[in-house]
């Protein structure tokens, strides 16, 4: 089946089998390998991408054909040229990653979270990231990173819980 998908602002037209999962489409058909495959069973959140601007989706649990006509944002689409997105800069500054495997999913989940809740409490962030597993950081610095990004994006942070 022929599909047209916009990935990080660029149009991709590909012929895919209906059973192709979005994450494999992104990585294997479009060469966008920033989106990682972790558990492959919608548990870990490594493969999260943002669909149509503000919806975080586990791309191992969506078919590529469902993305036909839609806009996908992946980690490759966060930075503006050489300037990191405030979320990426914050993960750098706050040591929000160690091995980095979960980071693309964390970034995109946080991206959608901040779209819906620009001034989250620490508890909001912890709840919002509960579908993303990190085995390195203990999450503390990830929460700090998202708080920093919320501040940078121009929204005063709510009182930290």
């Amino acid at each position, binding site marked *: *089946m022929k599909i047209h998908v916009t990935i990080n602002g660029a149009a991709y037209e590909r012929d895919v*089998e*209906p*059973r192709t*999962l979005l994450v*494999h489409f992104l990585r294997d058909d479009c060469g966008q390998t920033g989106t990682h495959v972790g558990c*492959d*069973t*919608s*548990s870990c*959140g490594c493969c*999260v991408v943002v669909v149509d601007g503000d*919806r*975080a*989706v*586990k791309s191992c*649990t*969506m*078919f590529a*054909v*469902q993305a*036909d006509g839609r806009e996908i944002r992946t980690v490759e689409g966060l930075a503006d040229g050489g300037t990191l997105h405030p979320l990426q800069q914050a993960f750098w500054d706050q040591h929000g990653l160690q091995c980095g495997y979960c980071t693309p999913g964390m970034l995109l*989940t946080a991206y*959608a979270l901040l779209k*819906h809740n620009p001034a989250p409490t620490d508890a909001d962030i912890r*709840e*919002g*990231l*509960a*579908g*993303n597993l990190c085995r390195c950081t203990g999450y503390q610095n990830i929460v700090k990173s998202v708080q920093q990004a919320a501040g940078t994006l121009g929204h005063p942070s709510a009182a930290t819980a």
Partner: protein
Amino acid sequence: MIPAAFEYVRAHSIDEAIAHLQQHGGDARVLAGGQSLIPAMRFRLARPAVLVDINSVRDLSYLRASDGVLEIGATSRDSDVERAGWIGDRRWSLIHDVSRVVADPVVRQMGTVVGSLCHNDPSGDWTTAALASRAEVVVRGKAGARTVPIDEFLVDSFTTAVGEGEMAVAARFPKPDDRTAGSYQKIERKVGDFATAAAAVQISLNADGTVRAAGIALSAAGPCALRVDEAERLLVGREPRDETIRAAADAASRRSAPQADLRGGVDYKKHLAGVLVARGLRQALARLGARA
């Protein structure tokens, strides 16, 4: 794992979806959020020959309060309910609680309420809440729509009253009065896991403080979400005092028929069923400003 091959069709209207379902009969499945169906297909537990994608049907994504009923369209996401403006009203507290603990927050941005009812997992959250709130499901077929009470809708594990060539288009939750509150209590090993045990409670009080109506249901307590009618009967007409709550909890514990698995043994899960019903009742009463 990659699912078995299937044919994909996209419907743009309910009629078009039903035409596809009529054509393909039992070989076809509806694709809404896909958060249960796609994992099942990946594990080859489900091998539908045809998927009818309803996500492009415009008039299925809505939350509508009318005629004393909250109607949730078939492609409304769990997160739509979680973020709804009215969700903080205590009369919707059962629905609110559930909307915050289904799966995990990312899965909830795709997963749907109606899809969860149609999947009818023995450990489902919405099925259990639908029993406690006496919801109905609107099922459409070639001949038109019928409204099915939730007790008839949930037939058996992964089986509902939706027939071949039909689809569920909406769930209808009766709007509770202002002396109604609920609670959803769920024990899970980690966010996103299936419930080890869960209980849905909704309770309405008369002006004199006695119980006018009660809905009590359990998840992960048998082949299907389970109404504990004995506990409901024990509560109605009585003041919800501690001994009544304990009796209702005991009834839930006796009625629970869980399977032992890695999440716990039968005795433990039966015990939890009672504990969670008691906690749910106490929280619902606290939300009503009533003392147990």
